């Protein structure tokens, strides 16, 4: 009976599609302007509609059933300048176009969506955005978001905390100051406001956008330090399947005290994507087993993801996201001592932690006309964790939380050079936990933004968002977060940008109500917590300069943040931990990025050229309350990356540097929780990788990758009492069709 119902739905969909007027047809061939080779994977879209496609292996794209009208056709691809043209189409027309994309410095993602909640070129965004294409990253056997984030300039990861330009420290995994989104849907847990790194479907992702700076004027709570938006792929008409199998071994530590015998890890991923008429499906599955280089720290996890898009009509599309992730891991918290850095020091380490993360979300996108559009977005993100000990009574910490989100966003091209956006947004966190109690937290917001282009080449963005937060047992409050952004395309070359914005983060349920005793720590509630607030400003410039005859993209940004009432865990009476509004902070810094290549070729991916990327961030994160550096921050961050194409593959090298963290919570040591808690050094991590292209060697669409992470077996910590992974040897086979 159920199958019959599904068949009826599909038949209705097919009939609706068949009944639509024939419209126009657009046939494109996309190729490289320098080499005239066809380009596969270019994104083609008609602005103001949901129509679009991805170029095939031969560079062709075909868009059908386009209603008569005037459109802006946009073609974009990583490593090329955006191509745009206005077209007037009549019903029955068949228009053929040759699109030649001009190369630009390697690695630059041309279109971003996070800065303004709409697609725009990177140059239009008045804030710093690092956009990372996922395909090259997945060659590195990464399976969790944090592994990818460590490779992004200005971003550090302190165990569960992502810090953009020094805004976050280490707070036991609670209260992220960076908002995480999956295709625009918030993905922070409802209880602790935490990122669950293993919940993201990296295999289905196209890119990750990292917006740096205050962004509450559009996104509300948690966007104090920035926003991370994971964007999934758009399927093309050609079926696209991909697989990845990898395995690796942890190297034996140089020091006998740390050796535990041979340990390793393996993982497997599968993804499939295809568009069939109005229906597009993207799906992925992941399984990972990690024995870990530390005792009681092993894990097994799996994940399923599906995205279904139905183009109901040219101006209308419905997208549904489904995701589930399951994780079982050891309860490792910190080491026994530096001498026994691979053995746990917390007495409850024999416990295991099981966690589940599920997302159901939908997006209804409607173009009412070529100037008016709306997007209705709703999601329910469920997170659950349970500590367990075989044979022990069921009284260990556990929590079930739902984070519900609904947003209705409107975009109106009022004048040719004035774009207005507005929306209403509601967030509800529903928590039932042994350690937090039964809690409800509600945030309601309205926002508006105007993008003004009357003074071109000057572009101005102004906007504001008003949030109201209510939670049982806590005071209700309002937060007004304005924003100003300016971009200026100068006549002499560089593109300048300026951004000023206010942001806030409402305390999470965990910060206000956590009450537990675990791993020797006692945590006490503090319902009186206020929201964290902050202002941030940035002045940036981007340009393409010629070095040794090759174009290099150079970007420099100077930034300043003033933060108030920062919530930090502190040790109080009886050595109990309590979250408090204690810190007034100021973070200033400079970030420099340069991307380009050296060598004789005109193209970056030709044999003999050396593709390079350099990024350097200098931070001065001051705790003004204590007149000292903020805890868990480094003053210098650096990344140097190089790739050398060899004809049948590529050799990659990456070096990541973080200067020594100057301050930690001394109480870990003074109260005797963690032995040698203060043992920390600068971070120097080198990764080497050699990829072999099966097509060039054996005529098969596969790739073999041999990698060595932390190649120099450098021993360091990111947070107290946690030795980072030693050298690892990784072998990966991946492919697609």
């Amino acid at each position, binding site marked *: 009976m159920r199958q019959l119902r599904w068949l009826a739905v599909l038949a209705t969909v097919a009939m609706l599609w068949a009944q639509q007027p024939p419209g126009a047809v657009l046939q494109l061939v996309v190729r490289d302007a320098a080499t005239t080779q066809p380009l596969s994977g270019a994104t083609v879209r008609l602005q103001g509609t949901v129509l679009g496609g991805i170029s095939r292996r031969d560079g062709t794209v075909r868009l059908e059933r386009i209603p008569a009208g005037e459109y802006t056709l946009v073609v974009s691809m990583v490593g090329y300048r955006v191509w745009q043209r206005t077209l007037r189409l009549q019903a029955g027309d068949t228009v053929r176009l040759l699109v030649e994309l001009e190369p630009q410095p390697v690695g630059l993602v041309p279109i971003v969506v996070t800065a303004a909640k709409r697609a725009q070129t990177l140059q239009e965004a008045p804030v710093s955005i690092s956009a990372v294409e996922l395909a090259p990253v997945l060659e590195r056997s990464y399976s969790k978001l944090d592994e990818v984030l460590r490779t992004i300039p200005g971003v550090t990861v302190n165990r569960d905390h992502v810090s953009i330009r020094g805004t976050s420290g280490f707070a036991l995994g609670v209260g992220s100051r960076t908002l995480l989104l999956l295709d625009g849907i918030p993905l922070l847990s409802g209880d602790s406001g935490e990122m669950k790194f293993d919940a993201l479907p990296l295999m289905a992702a196209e890119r990750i956008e990292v917006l740096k700076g205050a962004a509450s004027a559009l996104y509300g709570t948690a966007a104090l330090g920035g926003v991370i938006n994971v964007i999934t792929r758009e399927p093309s008409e050609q079926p696209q399947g991909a697989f990845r199998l990898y395995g690796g071994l942890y190297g034996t530590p140089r*020091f006998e*005290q*740390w050796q535990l015998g041979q340990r390793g890890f393996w993982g497997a991923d599968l993804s499939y994507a295809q568009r069939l008429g109005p229906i597009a499906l993207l799906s992925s599955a992941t399984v990972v087993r990690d024995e870990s280089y530390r005792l009681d720290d092993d894990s097994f996890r799996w994940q399923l993801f599906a995205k279904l898009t139905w183009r109901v009509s040219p101006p209308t599309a419905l997208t549904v996201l489904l995701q589930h992730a399951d994780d079982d891991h050891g309860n490792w918290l910190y080491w026994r001592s*530096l*001498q026994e*850095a691979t053995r746990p020091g917390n007495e409850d380490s024999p416990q295991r932690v099981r966690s589940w993360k599920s997302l159901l979300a939908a997006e209804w996108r409607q173009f009412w006309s070529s100037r008016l559009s709306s997007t209705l977005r709703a999601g329910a993100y469920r997170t659950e964790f349970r500590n367990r000990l075989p044979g022990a009574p069921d009284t260990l910490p556990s929590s079930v939380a739902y984070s519900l989100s609904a947003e209705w966003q409107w975009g109106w091209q009022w004048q040719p050079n004035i774009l207005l956006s507005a929306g209403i947004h509601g967030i509800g966190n529903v928590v039932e936990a042994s350690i937090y109690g039964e809690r409800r937290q509600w945030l309601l917001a309205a926002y508006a933004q105007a993008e003004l282009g009357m003074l071109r080449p000057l572009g101005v963005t102004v906007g504001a968002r008003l949030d109201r937060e209510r939670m049982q047992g806590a005071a209700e409050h309002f937060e007004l977060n304005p924003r100003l952004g300016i971009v200026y395309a100068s006549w002499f070359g560089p593109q300048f940008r300026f951004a000023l914005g206010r942001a806030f983060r409402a305390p999470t349920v965990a910060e206000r109500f956590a009450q537990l005793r675990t791993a020797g720590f006692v945590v006490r509630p503090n319902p009186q917590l206020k929201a964290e607030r902050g202002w941030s400003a940035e002045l940036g410039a981007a340009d393409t300069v010629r070095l040794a005859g090759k174009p290099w993209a150079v970007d420099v940004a100077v930034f300043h943040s003033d933060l108030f009432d920062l919530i930090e865990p502190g040790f109080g009476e009886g050595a109990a931990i309590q979250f408090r509004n204690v810190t007034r902070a100021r973070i200033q810094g400079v970030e420099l990025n340069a991307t380009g290549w050296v060598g004789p070729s005109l193209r970056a991916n030709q044999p003999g050229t050396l593709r390079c990327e350099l990024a350097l961030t200098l931070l001065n994160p001051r705790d003004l*309350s*204590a*007149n*000292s550096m903020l805890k868990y921050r480094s003053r210098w961050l650096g990344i*140097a990356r*190089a790739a050398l194409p060899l004809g049948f593959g590529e050799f990659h*090298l990456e*070096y990541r*540097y973080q200067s020594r963290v100057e301050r930690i919570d*001394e*109480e870990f*040591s*003074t*109260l*005797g929780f963690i*032995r*040698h*808690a*203060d*043992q*920390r*050094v*600068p971070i*120097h*991590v*080198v990764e080497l990788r050699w990829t072999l292209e099966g097509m060039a060697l054996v005529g098969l669409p596969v790739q073999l990758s041999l990698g060595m992470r932390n*190649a*120099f*077996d*450098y*021993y*360091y*910590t990111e947070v107290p009492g946690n*030795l980072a992974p030693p050298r690892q040897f990784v072998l990966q086979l991946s492919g697609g069709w």
Partner: protein
Amino acid sequence: MLLLVLLLLAGCGGLDPTVLPTEAYITGTVRFRGAWPPEDSLRDLRVVAFQNYPPQDVVGEVLSGKALFTQERLPLFVDSASYQLRIEQLPVTLRYIVVAQQYGPDLFRHWRVVGIYGCPPPADTACQPDSLQVQEAGRWYRADIEVDFEHLPPQPFP
């Protein structure tokens, strides 16, 4: 070339369990209350830790290394300041940890105690300073001190 240099750098150092720390640290926050004295009387301001209480010969203990003091002057005209003291000779018991102010030009004579660990202001002569037993290398020990320039504690200096 730059990458080669970085590679060489990466091969150096790192944590080493065979080189265990031999020193310990005292850390804490100095909280200031009351009106600050004029800037020309704040020639120096440091945390000093003595093994004896009361110190027999303040200047002599400092010069002989029996008393420890912070390497830099504490910041002035602030609400609070954090400090660190590195202790290499272990174990040791520090019986008198103070914030000391140099108020005049004479480096050996113009000092006064403005805050004592274990004697929050207003402290009288009956107050017994807290002792700190520093025994374990690699460990941090906590000693917060309160200073009220308008209610100075009893002075050990002649």
